């Protein structure tokens, strides 16, 4: 599913995003990527989505090499992903339903199926009653749930959530992670970045990767708690 071999990422200004990363993530895994701000979590997600390319080493996502010459392949990977961005990236001037639908319009799906999935996803995140509301009128938490609905409606092979607990208090953050856990389908890989390590204790499921100074290591739950 995800295979990184000796991957490094150095930005044009010389900042090191990732260093010699060796990593395998299998289909259906639930993975938390934790670490302090600026440690390289977002750099890793950027590589996963083909926003950045490895400076050295090789990286494969869903069997496709992440390389600047693989524009079509990267688009194909993105179509199989359900991203939940830190700032949600909802499209203003559109309703919640339109935002969820828009994420599927270019997929090879019949129109009726698109609308069915969109309504169903909004129901699963508890926002069906807000489907006709413009996203700019929704609260921060509601906006986040629309972003999640957009991700799951696509029935992706992989869900990626960047700091979904970022602006939430403890209870709401746990609820958010619970929601993402409950929405996960059997074969879907879920990758969540967070710097709120204390939350992970609250959840049973998931492998933990610790990122620091661009290095990624597996971490036990005890280690995360410490």
């Amino acid at each position, binding site marked *: 599913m995800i295979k990184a071999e000796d991957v490094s990422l150095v930005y044009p200004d010389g900042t090191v995003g990732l260093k010699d990363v060796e990593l395998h993530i299998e289909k259906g895994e639930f993975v938390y990527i934790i670490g302090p701000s600026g440690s390289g979590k977002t750099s890793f997600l950027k590589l996963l*989505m083909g*926003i950045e390319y490895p400076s050295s080493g090789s990286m494969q996502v869903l069997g496709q090499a992440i390389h600047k010459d693989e524009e079509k392949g990267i*688009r*194909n*990977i*993105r*179509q*199989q*992903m359900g*991203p939940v*961005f830190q700032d949600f*990236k909802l*499209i203003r*001037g559109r309703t919640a339903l339109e935002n969820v639908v*828009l*994420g599927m*319009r*270019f997929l*090879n799906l*019949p*129109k009726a199926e698109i609308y069915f999935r969109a309504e169903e996803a909004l129901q699963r995140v508890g926002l069906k009653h807000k489907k006709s509301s413009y996203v700019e009128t929704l609260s921060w938490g509601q906006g986040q749930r629309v972003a999640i609905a957009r991700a799951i409606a696509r029935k992706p092979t992989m869900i990626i959530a960047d700091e979904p607990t970022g602006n939430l208090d403890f209870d709401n953050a746990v609820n958010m992670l619970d929601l993402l856990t409950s929405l996960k389908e059997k074969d879907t890989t879920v990758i969540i970045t967070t710097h709120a390590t204390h939350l992970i204790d609250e959840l049973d499921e998931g492998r933990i990767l610790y990122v620091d100074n661009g290095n990624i290591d597996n971490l036990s739950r005890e280690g995360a708690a410490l």
Partner: protein
Amino acid sequence: MRNPFKNTAYYIKEAKTIFKVDLSSNILSILSIGLIFFILTLILTGWLISNNIVEIIEKETEISIYYNEGLEKDSLDNLLTKIGNIQGIRDAKIVSEDESYDRMVDILGMEAKILNHFENNPFSSFIEVKIEMESLDHILNELEYFQDIDYIRDNRQVIDRLQGIISIIEVLGLILFLAIGICTMIIISHIIRQGIYNNRDEIYTLKLLGAPDGFIQLPFFMEGLFLTIIGGGIAGVLWFILIKLGYGNIYNLLPFMPLPHGDEFVWPVITFLTIFSTFVGIIGSRFGLKSIK
């Protein structure tokens, strides 16, 4: 099976949304495009009118051939037939001395009494030859070999000047046509670039979600196309009003000018405007999208 028109309603709605995002600027752009197209239709109208006049004048282009006055009737008929067979000659006929005299009386009008001072008719008979203007050199070359011809009045100066005017009209028309076409394309591509800039966040989000370029670009393409077609429509309406109200007056005021009737060029101009605005819209939109890449 994939339905290629599945997203048509979405593209149209998106194009409308993009239009509304920068409403005032887009309205001004439509008016600019409309006015540019209006100028283009005026040029086209002028070109059609001048073409019509030139065509009429061309039909009237003639040379006068003065022949040996002692020529027998049979020889004259033979000469007339041979002249008529030269390529580029529309018509050839003999104008008698009396007819020449009468024509001069018509030309001189009140001053015709001056002709009374001549004891005899001072005019000779000649062969009046209507020719195709561009064949003048060829005809004169052919006539050189005719022994019974004394003198040819070829009106070369007038014909050369007329051909010069025609060339200027054609070149000027082409330059203006190209200039306006390019102007419109630049405006359209700029509008599209502006639209893409205003919607850059949305475009980036769609790219991250894996949307193909065609899906992202089509609403912008449609917006550009709509702007030019609406601009073309405005130009068409303005031009039609002008023809109905203004051209009729000119037509009645200048009865001596061989002007075509206004209705004769309504369909050519409207058809041209529709095709041209669509073409410019497509090219301008493509150019705008390509330059963003």
